[in-house]
Structure formats: C-alpha cells, structure tokens
C-alpha cells in the first residue's frame, strides 16, 4: 500500500497553507500530524482523503494519480472527521449497517449484519445495538463512529482528532487498534494538537509531520 504526495500545496483565498510537500505513506506506518490551530492539518487530511480537489501538485495512490483510481482508493480508505458521521435518529446497528453496505464486498445482508454486531461488541457497545444513538452518552456515540474501524475493510485510516470525547481507557484502546492495524500492514494518519495518548510515542512505529504555522511542513522519520 502506498500513498505519495508530489509537490503538494494548498492555497486558500490567496494564502498558502503549505506548499511543495513531498511525502510517502507506506504499509505499517503511523503518522501523527502536529501543528498550531489553523495551520492546515485538517485541510491536509481532507486533501489526502480525496475530498478536496483544490490543491496543486499530485497525489498518487499505488503509483497512480488519485483522479484515475478514485473508486479503488475510496474503497480502501477510511476517514473520520470532526463530525462523527452518525445519524442520531437511527440505532447503532442501523448506522453501522449503512457503512457496511457502502464499503463491504459481501453481498449477503445477514453476514454483513453479523459483522456489525461483532464490531459493536468490540467497542464495548454490546447490548446497545438496538438503542437509538441519541439515547447514548457522548462517549458512546463517539464509539459508534469508531466501530467502523473494527469492521476492517480499509487499509488506510485517516483520523482527524479521534481522541476527543473519549475517556482514558478508550484512548488506550484506540491507540492499541491503531498499532495493531499498522502491524497488520495497514497505515494510519492521525492529527492531534495536544499530547493526547501515551502509548504511541513509545511504540517506535510513530512518525511525525509537523506544521510550523508559517506555510512550512517538516517531516521527521
């Protein structure tokens, strides 16, 4: 698996957030993106996840320009942004079931549904499957979104501030999944502007991409 950026730059209303970014994301790598507020972290993630076409330079997925293999890329990429992407009027199961239908190769509904039950159990929501999400606590709601990670269809995870609104135990659990995902050959790109998470820095797989807030980006390997 590889995602490359060649001379990537982004200009918003005549201001350059970053420019000339050459960067490679490979299997087994866990990237943390740091930088002050407004330095362009979220914008970079939105460009990497193919949501924004307003950039200069090239994005290559498996060596091919992203525009030429959008479907294959979208099928192997999972993005969770600031907004959770969860419908509050639906139950946890219905929410997850929709994501399953959008991304799973499995045609049989029953099999897809079983996988949803399993994923919800893994994030500690066993017994809450049929509860409408609006009746769950904020942390539990966040976990419904994170249950998508446990479905395990995508190789590349792009997570924007995933540690917000989850408790300490949840943070450790999430870090554990991220590392396990990398060990299994996947890759993770994650932003966090404060030093949340303790496990990751000591794990050895972590790499950093740092924004200086002046339009420059530094890659530490």
């Amino acid at each position, binding site marked *: 698996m590889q995602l490359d950026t060649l001379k990537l730059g982004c*200009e918003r209303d*005549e*201001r*350059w957030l970053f420019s000339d970014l050459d960067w490679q994301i490979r299997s087994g790598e866990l990237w943390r993106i740091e930088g002050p507020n407004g330095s362009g972290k979220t914008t970079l993630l939105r460009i990497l996840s193919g949501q924004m076409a307003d950039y200069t330079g090239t994005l290559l997925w498996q060596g091919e320009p992203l525009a030429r293999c959008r479907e294959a890329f979208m099928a192997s990429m999972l993005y969770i942004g600031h907004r959770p992407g969860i419908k509050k009027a639906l139950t946890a199961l219905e929410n997850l079931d929709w994501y399953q239908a959008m991304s799973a190769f499995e045609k049989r509904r029953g099999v897809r549904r079983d996988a949803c039950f399993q994923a919800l159990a893994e994030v500690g929501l066993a017994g809450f499957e049929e509860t409408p999400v609006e009746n769950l606590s904020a942390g539990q709601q966040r976990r419904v979104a994170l249950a998508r990670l446990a479905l395990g269809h995508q190789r590349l995870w792009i997570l924007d501030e995933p540690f917000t609104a989850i408790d300490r135990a949840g943070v450790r659990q999430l870090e554990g999944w991220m590392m396990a995902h990398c060990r299994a050959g996947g890759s993770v790109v994650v932003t966090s502007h404060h030093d949340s998470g303790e496990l990751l820095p000591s794990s050895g797989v972590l790499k950093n991409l740092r924004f200086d807030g*002046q*339009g420059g980006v530094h890659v530490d390997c």
Partner: protein
Amino acid sequence: MAFDSLADFWAMNGYAAYVWPAFIVVLGALVTFALVSVIEQRRLLRHVAALERREARRPARSTTATDEEMS
C-alpha cells in the same frame, strides 16, 4: 432631422414622458457603472500604495506576501 425645432425635439410629440426616462435609466446605468469602475481603480491603487508605505516603515517583519501568480 425629424423635428422642426429643439423644443419639438424635447417634447417628442407628446411622448417625452416616456422616451426620456427610458433613455436616462438605461444610459445612466451604463455611465454609472463606467464611472464607478474608474473611480474604484484609483481608490484601490491608492490603497495599495498606502499599504506599501506602511510595510516599508516596519521592514523587520517577515513578509508573507508572495508574487505567486494565480492560474
């Protein structure tokens, strides 16, 4: 000349109340747009010159201004 005198011309054979307002509104809109765009250009360039002078007074600040051309 389709009219006998200037007074006839102004009167438009009784249609003055229709012909002149139509001309004034349409041509007036065109002329207003033209004048405003010229005045606006003067004002903008004066503004840029003032900006330049202000920045020249504090040269220490690193300028983020780029000469990038948009395309």
